[in-house]
């Protein structure tokens, strides 16, 4: 055969096998339902539902003073951050209510609070905070401290005959910050983007792994092995088909949910976004190919995916910033394509940066992906010998 003919046959094989994978996937109703749900409804729910900022923290008040000042202080704990859960008659009831877990904090205002403020004596309020959920608890405490501090400052100024607006003669540093890229500090944007990335990661591992193991399970791989297909020709069409499928789903999530409903901006180049997403999917698919070589059936593949994907999702910097992790985790996560893709995706979508800023991330992702893919392919070849 001439080399040109050989290339024609090679492409023909790739085409028919890829088409076969797409047809099979489209006819797999449960898997398709899962895919559609994950890229539409689930993106919507997560974007709306997950809030890391303080919202609706239940506040109980034990007010032993019942004065103008105490009521003024309590009124400053308001929605959307704090929810007033009522007043306590006895101080020790606060512990019971915190134990029950309905409310998050108890503000204890001592008797003679107002008197002390007016006469210029030092006084204190007690705040009990349930920090079972540490981030929420800590930020509630922080907010509360700021509110109380502000109130204290204002009462001092008031005692000296000044108001907050006419504070000019008093020397103080004003901290003024400006928010970039997400001026409204709209959490929905980042949450929906990071959820989309999570879904892409899960399916990039799961779909090729499931497709490969299904051939094993049903015995059709035997037929492929006696045909003139090489292991690469068996594996590659699955990766290609699944990549196309996931890119399609990503477009649905982006243009069907995130942009119209959440108003997520697409500031950078779409072509760049989709080509780097394709690179990310192929890079991650290597893990799926590996998973298929150590499992025997679909159920095992499902569990294996969970096992492999969970640490990638948790540690690649979606939930918490990379910088806060121990050094060894940071080194390990250098192997995760997702670590680079987060910066690429948020960079293109929110910051609108181009390839000139992202090339190093893309290169790193490409290198890691090539090694993962090579490893998966090596395992895949080996299992048939």
């Amino acid at each position, binding site marked *: 055969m001439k080399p040109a003919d050989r290339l*024609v*046959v090679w492409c*023909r*094989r790739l*085409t*028919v*096998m890829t088409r*076969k994978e797409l*047809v*099979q996937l489209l*006819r*797999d109703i449960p898997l398709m339902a899962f895919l559609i749900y994950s890229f539409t409804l689930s993106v919507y729910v997560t974007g709306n539902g997950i809030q890391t900022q303080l919202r609706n923290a239940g506040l109980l008040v034990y007010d032993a003073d019942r004065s103008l000042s105490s009521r003024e202080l309590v009124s400053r704990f308001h929605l959307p951050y704090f929810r007033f859960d009522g007043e306590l008659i006895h101080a020790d009831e606060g512990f019971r209510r915190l134990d029950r877990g309905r409310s998050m904090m108890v503000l204890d205002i001592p008797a003679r609070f107002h008197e002390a403020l007016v006469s210029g004596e030092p006084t204190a309020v007690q705040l009990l905070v349930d920090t079972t959920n540490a981030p929420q608890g800590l930020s509630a405490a922080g907010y509360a401290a700021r509110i109380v501090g502000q109130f204290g400052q204002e009462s001092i100024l008031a005692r000296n005959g000044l108001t907050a607006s006419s504070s000019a003669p008093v020397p103080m540093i004003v901290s003024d910050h400006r928010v970039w890229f997400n001026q409204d500090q709209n959490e929905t944007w980042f949450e929906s983007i990071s959820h989309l990335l999570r879904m892409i990661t899960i399916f990039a591992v799961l779909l090729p792994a499931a497709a490969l193991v299904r051939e094993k399970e*049903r*015995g*059709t791989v*035997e*037929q*492929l*092995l*006696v*045909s*003139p*297909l090489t292991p690469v020709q068996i594996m590659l069409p699955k990766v290609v088909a699944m990549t196309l499928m996931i890119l399609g789903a990503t477009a649905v999530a982006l243009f069907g949910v995130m942009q119209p409903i959440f108003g997520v901006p697409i500031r950078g180049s779409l072509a760049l976004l989709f080509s780097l997403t394709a690179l990310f999917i192929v890079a991650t698919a290597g893990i799926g190919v590996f998973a298929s070589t150590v499992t025997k059936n679909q159920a095992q593949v499902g569990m294996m995916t969970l096992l492999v994907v969970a640490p990638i999702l948790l540690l690649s910097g979606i939930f918490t910033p990379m910088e806060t992790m121990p050094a060894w985790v940071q080194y390990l996560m250098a192997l995760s394509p997702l670590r680079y893709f987060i910066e690429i995706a948020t960079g293109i979508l929110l910051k609108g940066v181009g390839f000139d800023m992202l090339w190093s991330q893309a290169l790193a992702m490409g290198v890691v992906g090539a090694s993962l893919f090579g490893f998966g392919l090596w395992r895949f070849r080996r299992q*048939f010998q």
Partner: protein
Amino acid sequence: MDQPEILTPPPAQVVRVRGFVKQYKQHIAVSGVDLEIHKGEIYGLIGPDGAGKSSLMKAIAGVLTYEGGTVEVFETMIDTERSAERVKQRLGFLPQGLGLNLYPDLSVDENIDFFARLRLVPERELAERKARLLAMTRLDKFRARAMKNLSGGMKQKLGLICTLIHEPELAILDEPTTGVDPVSRRDFWAILAELLQERGMTVLVSTAYMDEAERFHRLSFLSSGKVLASGTPEEVHALVPGSMVTFEATPQLEAISRLKTGCTQVEALGPVLRVFTDDTNPVSAAQAITSYLGDIEPRQLHVDKLDLEDVFVALLLRETDQPPPSPELPTASVSSANHSLAIEAKELIRDFGTFRAVDRVSFQVKPGEIFGLLGANGAGKTTVIKMLNGILPPTGGEGWVAGEDMKTAGGAIKERIGYMSQAFSLYLDLTVEENIRLFAGIYGLDRRATNERFAWIVSMAGLQGYESSLTVRLPMGVRQRLALGCALVHQPRVLFLDEPTSGVDPIGRRHFWDILSRLAREEGVAILITTHYMSEAEHGDHLALMYAGRIVAEGSPAAMKAQVEREAGQLLEIVTDQPGLALRQLERAGFAGIALFGAKLHLLSRDPAHDEVRIRESLASDGLRVLGAAIRPLSLEDVFVHRVMALERRDRETTKGAAA
């Protein structure tokens, strides 16, 4: 008229089924089946996959609800879960599938103990029964072995022990012999016969293989959810009067086409033709055939009684009222066939660690030849095929396939061979057309060639009207022909078939074999087929029997039979009124290797006339009557069992000798 047998009470009924209907959503699996099983008999349900056997058996076992009719077991109506619970202690149920009811990680011992304790068998009885059943099944040496490491036949024997450990009065066995080699199958039937005899057990058993029908006392033949025939094998025989004429004729294809003008069943078994005629008189039957043949002279013409399989095929044809599908093999542009060997294996060896799976195997297959590779599970057949297909490199030896050296030209070989496996390896979620076009693309066919081959396959396999159906919805016979079509899409010169006919109905199977012999005869395709169903092996031109990785016997089916007849004698069939007792009496009298077929005993005898007299005397001394004795032609299954048993005996003696 007087009824002389008025004194015998009517047989006690263990199962009574009336008008049974089972539906799966829209699909009616069983419609209006009646069934009565008497105490102490082996009742057979015969029929292809999807005939409704399993549904019926599960309903009788009380594990499946049904839509219509009544099912009574031990005179208890099985209509609610509670009533089913009442009889379950008296039942044993072996579901379909090799060892599916067993726990793979538990040992033989632990599996049996588990099932016994589930059934609250007292420990002392358990020990005694376990020892007896393990000895009977020759599994006693493997007590500590994990179930997953047993061979297929051993798994099925263990499954049987676990089903019978609580000594049920009724055992329900769903396709217990599917996928089991002939020797293990014979063991299996012997165990059942003995338990039947000793414990008065009743057995309901199903099978997809017609040649097992002779083993049943009574049977029902199911097809598409209906009973086509039922009764004793003799009664079923009587439904279709006729005879089977076998002969050799050349040119075979011309002979077949002449015969098909007047005969409904014409089958080619290697060089031999089998033709059904509804004439029971041997002389006029032979004359009728000769007149169809015209100037073609039949050689070695015999007129035989019909097999039960022939009867079933005749019944099926009568039922469907269709002419048998005659495959049109459309002419395809055949590449110039070179006349060198299609397959040549020379001293092939394959080791897995220290285990030698294939040991110096040599054989040759010529173009246009059907070559059968026989052997039990684990004999090494599949390993040989894998090496020849280029999936598995050999440890030693060499081989050529389609003119290419398998060591250096694996890729070229793969382009020139077709392969079809037991599982049919089709994509069930693709349509017929999508499957064919997929494989055409894999073999690199361009659009024009693909269209041409697509048309050829559809007409060859009789797939007209199925083109856009999903493969999963096809009947097994059609699926099998589609798999064959996909294996032939690139016009290979060599075709490998690995156990290709499981679960296909008899008409479908005959259609399949029709296509294969035409491929071999007309297009000169060399076909290598493995099977452990010996009725199928009769189709081969040349057979090789493998045992423990080696070829131990070789030749045409007729030659292999003749050789065994020379070595061990002819097959003597004894019909008696109490076969179980007779079997034991004869074994005590020193006859070895007797197999029980329903009411008949089979044994090999070098001097049938003399042995018949001895048997009659021996049985008469015990008060047993011999109702008939005859010399029957050997089947390939007899050949297989004889050979393998002899080898196993020799192996046991050498290991004993080594131990001593």
